[in-house]
């Protein structure tokens, strides 16, 4: 217990520290409130809460992608939780001797045991993390410079380490002063006793209060420091996980051209409030960067840097924003560069990996939208694609009347003649115009005909789904494409839409509904799996050798379709698939998404080469794909590397068609 003077000093310190803490938290809260509205964040609160518990309490958020680091982080996390409560006891002790929230009894003893153990684990955690950060120096947390250079981690790690140490030493001194009875439940604390053995009672008392005061002052310093640093994720992280979107990864929201006159984000005050919490939640852990195809192929983009730069930017503008003024500078150029935003393939790997559920893609896309629609600044290679989408509804600007030319020599029913079918097959631009895509379409048509499926295509009436336009921020053109298709779909009766292209699949299924298009959409992998399991198609041949499968981002991470393509390939090849190291949710993008298919890739390594190498290392003779864009990226990659004799790429439909005949 402290004397009156000590108590007053302590109270003043607590007051000051909590005061500073709340001031900074309030500032950030007010900054979040300057964001634009975003409705879909509070629905299903129980489910949301459950997810937070499942992720945060178990520390799965941190463990799932980095097991060892994650466990170490879990030690520190649990240390933090225990010590938050322990601090109440600690402060209580200043006002009443031997104060404890739990009174006396077994629970209290167990509590002290718990804290004792946790403190040691927490020390192990901090040492591990410090060694990793300052000696092992993984790229994830030390690159790119200069944004990754910050004393914050050093400060926090030393504070936590100090907290634990002073706790143990303080308690150790108490053991000597009070006696063995106190030490019963504190095996680790007891270990500090020999360090202080033989000291006089006077020096012990001094030492004891030194440790006591150091401990509490460090706690209070920590409290002041948290909201100023990336360690604000202690607070913002769980909140952010609670608020996460329930839409599939990367789903974009409609721009209402009737209502708004500014499109996308030019200035930082145009973000939605949830985006701002993202910026404040980022821990600089680099998990997103580790899996980002752009960063891994030496492009300018790191999703981590996007989050951190925007945090810096918004804090830099906080005076303006909080006084209701416009930001002094736009986001682009100084804080984020064009090369960064245009390098994104919208693969979603970053969002999948992020422990605090940050949503990078919508943020990058809002920046693209403003560059595209407000500033008219975008990679010039997109010009012909836009013209093509505008006049011929396909990015290659091939005559729209030739859309169904690939069917020549095939029996492919046309919707205009059929009027009503089970499956409206949305072929898509790649399947209609790209040479390799056309091969997929032919194979799929062959299968559908053989299986006697009731289906038809739209032929000349079909238009681009709008994915290439939307992912590069040309929302206006996307809406033109989408509205046109929705009108066309209205003319006919069908039960489901089937498509071979995951981009069309995703956008028709998840993004047309904002424009009045609600459809049951299946990917051809799903239909094929069904046809195989119901015995409608028979697989007799097997000429493919060992097969590996490349998950398309828009099929896998976006829409969680992992098993169907694999079951098909197993059925077709009668053997197990050899998986690449990065498969399913961790699949590595082919490089074509996000409109990258239509842009040049001049910087760094080629993403498709990285993936082709990975596929080749599995020893497979064939890599199966389920997306025409992945297929062309692989095909190009294989040819550019000159390994056509070692590896070939085939769509699952082609593999099935081969196995049928």
């Amino acid at each position, binding site marked *: 217990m402290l004397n009156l003077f000590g108590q007053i000093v302590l109270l003043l310190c607590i007051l000051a520290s909590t005061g500073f803490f709340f001031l900074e938290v309030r500032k950030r809260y007010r900054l979040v409130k300057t964001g634009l509205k975003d409705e879909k964040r509070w629905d299903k609160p129980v489910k949301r809460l459950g997810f937070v518990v499942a992720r945060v309490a178990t520390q799965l958020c941190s463990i799932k992608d980095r097991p060892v680091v994650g466990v170490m982080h879990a030690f520190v996390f649990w240390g933090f939780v225990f010590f938050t409560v322990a601090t109440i006891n600690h402060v209580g002790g200043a006002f009443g001797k031997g104060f404890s929230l739990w009174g006396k009894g077994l629970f209290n003893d167990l509590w002290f045991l718990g804290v004792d153990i946790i403190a040691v684990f927490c020390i192990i955690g901090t040492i591990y993390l410090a060694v990793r950060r300052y000696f092992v120096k993984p790229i994830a947390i030390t690159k790119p410079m200069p944004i990754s250079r910050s004393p914050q981690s050093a400060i926090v790690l030393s504070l936590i380490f100090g907290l634990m140490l002073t706790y143990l030493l303080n308690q150790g001194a108490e053991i000597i002063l009070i006696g063995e009875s106190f030490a019963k439940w504190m095996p680790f604390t007891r270990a500090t006793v020999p360090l202080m053995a033989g000291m006089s009672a006077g020096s012990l008392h001094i030492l004891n209060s030194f440790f006591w005061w150091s401990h509490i002052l460090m706690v209070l310093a920590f409290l002041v420091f948290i909201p100023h640093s990336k360690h604000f994720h202690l607070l913002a992280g769980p909140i952010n996980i609670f608020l996460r979107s329930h839409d599939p990864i990367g789903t974009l929201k409609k721009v209402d051209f009737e209502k708004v006159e500014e*499109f996308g984000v030019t200035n930082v005050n145009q973000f939605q409030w949830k985006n701002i919490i993202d910026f404040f939640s980022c821990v600089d852990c680099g998990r997103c960067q580790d899996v980002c195809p752009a960063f891994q192929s030496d492009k300018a983009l790191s999703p981590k840097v996007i989050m951190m730069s925007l945090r810096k930017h918004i804090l830099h503008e906080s005076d303006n924003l909080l006084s209701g003024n416009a930001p002094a500078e736009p986001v682009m150029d100084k804080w984020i560069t064009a090369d960064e935003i245009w390098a994104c393939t919208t693969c979603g790997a970053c969002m999948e990996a992020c422990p605090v559920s940050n949503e990078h893609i919508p943020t990058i896309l809002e920046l693209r939208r403003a560059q595209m629609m407000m500033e008219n600044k975008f990679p010039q290679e997109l010009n012909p694609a836009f013209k093509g989408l505008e*006049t*011929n509804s396909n990015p290659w600007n091939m005559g729209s009347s030739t859309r169904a030319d690939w069917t020549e020599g095939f029996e492919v029913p046309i919707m205009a003649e059929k009027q009503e079918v089970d499956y409206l097959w949305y072929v898509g631009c790649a399947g209609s115009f790209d040479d390799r895509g056309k091969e997929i379409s032919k194979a799929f048509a062959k299968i559908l005909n053989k299986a006697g499926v009731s289906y038809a295509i739209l032929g000349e009436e079909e238009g681009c789904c709008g994915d290439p336009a939307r992912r590069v921020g040309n929302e206006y053109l996307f809406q033109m494409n989408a509205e046109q298709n929705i009108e066309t779909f209205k003319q006919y009766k069908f039960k489901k839409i089937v498509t071979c292209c995951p981009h069309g699949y995703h956008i028709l299924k998840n993004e047309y509904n904002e424009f009045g298009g609600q459809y049951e959409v299946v990917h051809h992998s799903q239909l094929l799996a069904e046809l195989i399991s119901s015995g409608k198609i028979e697989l007799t041949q097997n000429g493919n050798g060992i097969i590996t499968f490349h998950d398309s981002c828009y099929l896998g991470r976006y829409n969680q379709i992992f098993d169907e393509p694999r079951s098909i390939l197993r059925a077709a090849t009668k053997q197990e698939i050899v998986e690449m190291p990065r498969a399913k949710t961790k699949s590595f993008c082919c490089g074509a998404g996000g409109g990258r298919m239509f842009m040049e890739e001049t910087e760094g390594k080629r993403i498709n080469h990285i993936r082709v190498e990975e596929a080749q290392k599995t020893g497979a003779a064939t890599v199966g794909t389920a997306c025409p864009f992945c297929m062309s990226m692989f095909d190009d990659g294989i040819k550019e590397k000159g390994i056509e004799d070692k590896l070939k790429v085939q769509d699952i439909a082609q593999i099935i068609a081969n196995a049928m005949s």
Partner: protein
Amino acid sequence: MKIIVCLKQVPDTEANIKIDTNGKSISEAGIKFIINPYSEYAIEEAIRLKEAGKAESITAVSWGPERVSEALKTALAMGVDDVLLLKTDSYSVDSFATAGILAAKLKTMEYDLILMGKETIDDGSMQIGPMLSELLNIPCVTVVTKLDVDGEHVTVKREVEGGSEIIETSTPCIITCQKGLNEPRYPSIRGVMMAKKKQVTTEQVSFEGENLSINKLSYPAARSEGKVVGEGADAVAELVRLLREEAKVL
């Protein structure tokens, strides 16, 4: 300086052209129309002059049916200030009639520079620029790949067979634009939205009639399929023989 851009709307290069049942015009059903690519160079050049502070206003003019409003809206979206659509009861491929209609209107307007495509990709007569310059009694330089305007002084580079020439003239004058002059911009969405709200001024004008009309349209002869002569060095002799005897190009 005031600029007038004369432009034409033409069928898309990828459009599947079908001759109408009358045998004299093409069927417009299902055809996508675009701004004549050479007219786009004219629009772009005008906008660049304005952006460089050398022009104060740009008006785009076209003669054609209602559908041409779309092309004019695109011009607005790209950055021209005003557009004017001249309509008549019937339309013609007679270049002189076109030049006459444009000239009649342009005489009532103020301009220092008239920009237009060197030709249109549909009829491709390459005549409107020179004819218009006759009718307006101002100079005209055709097939221009570089344009410099300094006050009234105009310096242009134009393509000639196997080279280029630099020509000087002064405003008012007509410049017809060739590929290479610039890279036309994709209209900004903001521009498109603004253009959507703007009105296309239309004016019914009189059409004196044509001196020239289409008698009959026919499809080009179907191209015969390519022939693979053989592979490697052995095929060379045969290829040369065919080129000499059958194709008669050697």
